[in-house]
């Protein structure tokens, strides 16, 4: 990277962490605005959850099932796993900023494996839940929120997988890596929203 070739270049502390010392590309601006709209979408859904929960008498599943099966170990474990994949994803971005494509691919592979495991666990959570989507506000909210979040995880995984294949084909270097930075930001968003969704839903709203 020829950053030192440009004299008097100012380095913005936040921006340089997010996207390196290069100025933000149009693609990155685009994904950041798009993530803001996604945040508002989930804000709408979460607001609906909180509003419906305010009427606690009708909150419990109508078929008498428990709200979540068994203990909370698996949800906690997979929450921690999903949120911590932000770290290898950010390392992948750091690696390609230095032109290290191999480290980028390894880090992205970790994200892909753990993310897929998260989705598989989600499938088992759904199939073991003792209630259907029509069993009252809690049940409907549970499936809607985890479902939309799961769809976003799958979308993020497809996004990352496509960039991973491009990486295998030799795309990306220290200067041209907007897609990796964009995928990283999107993945941070997906993990962050999960924290907002799962904690109220599973632990706090009794």
């Amino acid at each position, binding site marked *: 990277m020829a950053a030192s070739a440009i004299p008097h270049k100012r380095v913005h502390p936040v921006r340089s962490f997010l996207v390196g010392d290069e100025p933000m590309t149009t693609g990155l601006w685009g994904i950041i605005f798009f993530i803001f709209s996604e945040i508002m979408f989930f804000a709408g859904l979460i607001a609906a959850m909180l509003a419906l929960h305010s009427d606690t008498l009708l*909150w419990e599943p109508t078929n008498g099932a428990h709200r979540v099966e068994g203990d909370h170990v698996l949800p906690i474990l997979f929450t921690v796993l999903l949120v911590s994949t932000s770290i290898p994803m950010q390392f992948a971005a750091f690696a390609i900023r230095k032109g290290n494509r191999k480290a980028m691919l390894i880090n992205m592979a970790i994200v892909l494996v753990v993310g897929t495991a998260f989705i598989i666990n989600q499938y088992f959570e759904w199939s073991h839940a003792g209630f259907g989507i029509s069993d*009252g506000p809690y049940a409907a909210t549970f499936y809607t929120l985890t479902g939309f979040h799961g769809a976003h995880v799958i979308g993020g995984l497809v996004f990352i997988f496509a960039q991973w294949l491009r990486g295998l084909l030799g795309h990306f270097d220290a200067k041209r890596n907007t897609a990796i930075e964009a995928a990283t930001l999107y993945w941070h968003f997906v993990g962050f929203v999960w924290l907002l969704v799962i904690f109220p839903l599973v632990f706090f709203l009794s």
Partner: protein
Amino acid sequence: MATLAGAQTSTYAGANAWRVILEWLTTVDHKKIGIMYLWTAGAFGLVGMAFSLVMRTELAQTGTIISAETYNSIFTMHGSVMIFLFLLPIGAAFMNYSMPLQIGALDMAFPRINALSFWIFLFGGVLITLSFAAEGGTASAGWTAYPPVTLDTGNNAEPPGAGMDMWLVGVILLGQASIFGSVNFLVTIFKMRAPGMTMWRLPLFTWTTLVTGLLILLSTPVLAAALVLGFIDRNGAGGAFFDPAAGGQPLLWQNLFWFYSHPAVYIMILPAMGIVSDVFGVFTRRPVFGYRSMVLALIAIGLLGFIVWAHHMFTTGGVFLPFFMGATFLIAVPTGVKMFNWIATMWRGSNIFPTAMLFSVGFLMLFLIGGITGVFHAAVPVDFALHDTYFVVGHFHYTMSIAATFGFLAGCYYWFPKMFGKFMNEGLGKLHFWLVFIGVNLIFFTQLLLGLDGMPRRINDYVDNPGWELMNMLTTIGAFVSAAGMMVFLYNVFYSLKWGERAGSDPWEGTTLEWATTSPPPAHNFDSLPEIRSERPLFDLRFGERLQDDPHYHVNNGHNGNGGRRARQPSASAREEG
């Protein structure tokens, strides 16, 4: 500047009709996409107007011509088509066409996503209109689609059928198109400006595009959440979200819906305000008064627009009245700033009145009536008396429907020479203006009076209270007069496309950058750009030399500390892009 007038119609030599069609279907050029938005939204607008004529025929006298179910379906589709398929996309049409030209960009930041937006919009629009063929007919719960009317609760006589689902999915698609579009507008404005085009030199229409883009970006997803919940509620959740019998809350829908739909009225009116500002800046031969205060007022309207949604729900008893009343009153302040700035621009200007200017002045008058009746509504006691009467119908048509349409019509007359290289016919244009101006005032002022007299909205028949029949008849006459005016407009468009007087690059002596290129512009927009050192680069180009030593030039030119006279150093990012 090379003449590339033919570039707009086709880039193929000896192209046949199929080639041209294929070219338009596959285009990613912001100008062509803008023109496609314009035609599509215009066509939907005529459909919506036809629905309104059906309603006015029904309401002209007591007694019924069409059934109540048909009437419900027609007024629902009138609102949905006019808002989602005419007013919102026609704003997008002008933003697509003019904004990149105004900032000196080659195209949008993401041209292919721009094309994707248009096709998603078209698909969603077709889905909504096709619901006439659905079993059980179209959605018929009003454009606001309040549950539990939208649900099959077991209590409603005719539960809505597939048409309601098509409406929900269609509007989700339109929202998706809007979000993609807004990302595109925002990134284009932030990243694609020509060197020297700083934020404080953006034309006012571009500023409105920026604020509108932010409103779309942050409010539309909330509507998408509401629509998704509504769809799940109808198909699986059994009313758990919105049906009180199943544990849901109807007010939840209203909150989510208006969190979008109140900013949405600004999404509709702000681009019209931007067009009007630009038109005033040209036809008064003066810079727009208070450029910076215009921008700040715009931003204030955008911010306040997010905290007033519950004033649509005053009578529900579920909202905190004083806060939403106060916040709604506050919006009158930045709106008033804009109003006085426009008037001050005309004050002692060398005003000329081509049709675009007539529609802009008409915009001011209509928006004034609409805005003041809006302040009436903001007062809770008045709203309690007038809620769901024709006063509301008159108010919101005056503001977001008719005033916005006047702004967009001004935009049509103003940018038509740029889009097609020909003037619109002025005689027909003036006839169009007067017919529509008289017509809409006849419609909506009588509706205000009807509302004060207590006539409720969304009814297909009424008892002949004294005066109601007369005023309803006047309203219906007004509807047909303005429809006749729109027919004149339609004829004018085709007449001018074929026989219109040829327009040069800069037919109006414009001030912004879109007039610095040929009409229509080449695919790459600009062969060269003038130096940009104020928000009126073409004025500087024309008169800068001559006014070099005129002390007033400092005052009239820039509105910022350096008077726009001394070119500032281009910013770091501008230098890199340049």
